[in-house]
């Protein structure tokens, strides 16, 4: 299928530090692509460039062939490109339900309403319940976010993104910091994402990456080292060098980050 999101020769540097260097690849509807690379490779930077938190030094980002680089962050979200955060960015002093409700109101373009009709209210609540259900958080609806277990907060981070009904979803280490035994719930959620959604997953845990991805983009020092199927990437000597050469063990980096 034709790509929805296309990165075209994307470059970014912070002063002398090159964090994105000629990055070119695309995402098509239904894609399950993993973005991997050592700490500091520039993975989060790439998400920041796509979402509009950072502006590229050069290069282009297009959605359905239309350039996004001049669009503001909210405009890109409204166009369907949604990200999650590596470090939780939640409304900690509000309830789980209100967190999702805030996102649903954005999706339904009702956040400026000073008054809600009964029908609108029911539709919003149905959407909130639907998202909470999909993430196994329905029992937590009334809880303040800061009282949630860490793993549940990671789920809520994904919930906020899904409530926006994105076309392209950028997941920045959704299982970061979650003990290995508990990351299964998060991966199950990711495995059951809508089939037509284009998903880019950043993840250090290779087991999770190989379970999820049909394609892997390997990033090193801001540049694409290789793009291929999981089997191709696993067999690539340069990738082995990148991981085994540095850390001596593949999954060790998942403990570091």
């Amino acid at each position, binding site marked *: 299928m034709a790509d929805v999101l296309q990165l075209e020769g994307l470059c970014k540097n912070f002063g002398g530090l090159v964090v994105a260097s000629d990055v070119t690849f695309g995402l098509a509807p239904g894609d399950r692509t993993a973005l991997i690379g050592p700490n500091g490779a520039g993975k989060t930077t790439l998400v920041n460039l796509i979402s509009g938190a950072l502006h590229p030094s050069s290069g282009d980002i297009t959605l359905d062939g239309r350039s996004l680089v001049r669009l503001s962050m909210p405009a890109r*979200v409204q166009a369907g490109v949604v990200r999650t955060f590596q470090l939780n960015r939640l409304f900690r002093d509000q309830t789980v339900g209100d967190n999702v409700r805030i996102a649903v109101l954005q999706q339904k373009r009702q*956040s400026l*309403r000073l008054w809600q009709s009964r029908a609108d209210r029911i539709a919003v609540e149905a959407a909130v319940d639907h998202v909470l259900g999909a993430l196994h958080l329905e029992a937590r609806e009334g809880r303040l976010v800061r009282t949630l277990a860490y793993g549940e907060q990671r789920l809520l981070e994904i919930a906020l993104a899904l409530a926006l009904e994105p076309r392209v979803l950028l997941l920045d280490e959704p299982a970061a910091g979650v003990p290995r035994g508990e990351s299964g719930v998060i991966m199950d959620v990711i495995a059951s994402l809508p089939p037509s959604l284009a998903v880019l997953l950043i993840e250090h845990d290779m087991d999770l990456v190989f379970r999820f991805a049909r394609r892997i983009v390997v990033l090193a020092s801001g540049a694409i080292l290789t793009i291929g199927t999981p089997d191709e990437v696993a067999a690539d000597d340069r990738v082995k060098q990148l991981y085994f050469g540095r850390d001596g063990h593949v999954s060790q980096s998942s403990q570091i980050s």
Partner: protein
Amino acid sequence: MAAVGLENATAAARPQRPAIPFLPEVMLAALGIGAFFAFPNDLAFLARILITGLFVLSLSLVLGQAGIPTLGHSASMGTGAYAAGLFAIHVSQDPLAGLLAGGLAGGVIAVVTGALLLRTAHLTFVMLTIAVAQILYEIANQAAWLTGGDNGLSGISVDPILGVFGFDLYSRTSYLYALAVLMVSYFILRTIVDSPFGLTSRGIHSDPERMRALGCNTYRHLLIVFTIGGLFAGLAGALSAQVAQVVGLASLSFGTSGDALVMLIVGGSARLPGALVGTVVFMIVEHVAATVNPYHWLFIIGGLLIVTVLVLPGGLISVVDWVSARMPWRTFGRGARHG
């Protein structure tokens, strides 16, 4: 320790409409009418409390809900006061039309200055809000031919309300008029706080960048909040012009903004009723302490502020919440739990 207990009291389930519609407004009316009969000789002072309460309520929307750190909220109040005063002198003595004029003027000042200022944030924004209020103060001071300068704008008189209730010497009408305007305003503000707009405002308050990553045009949203806040501040200014029949430069002063901020923090900024509790406590303390010792009442206000900030970060309203959570009926202001 106390703080922990208070937090638990408010960590309840999702917001719910109060079981009885208009409950907060009915309670407001009951308290207001009670005070009317209990203190018939202090109605002028009580009317000032109600008007200031409306001003602080409008600040509660802007600062408490949306987190807009303005220290120049008097700009809208003063503009509203002068607008209503000039309206009564030059255009029409109808009080309700005058209110409308004051509210509109306050809203217009807010939308015009907000459009510029809300492009900035943090300390820059705070400084600019002070600057705007100072500039308006100086304009009112210089344009003495229009505003009366530092003598104030006098000669304001208004017709009986709805053609029936004339203003009397004992401020009875003024007081009940202010109470009625406050009740209607409270209902509107409470509806806003409980609406999708209000929830989104609190989201922006906690993390504006996160809201942008959810697709929210935070600038536009905050500008609307700022404008609504300015409108109600202008309304308060108009009320004070009609009731006091004079508008002073003080209505535009930095002190007016600062006092309102203290009242809001003392009462509690997270929920609307906090604004009213803070106003009542501040103004009564000021009134009583100033009679006892005209030079040292600021010590008491300062002490009150320090104690609330350190011991009751949620403001005095959190005490009310704490008590009402332990009462069998558990009703006070539930609808505006967040606001």
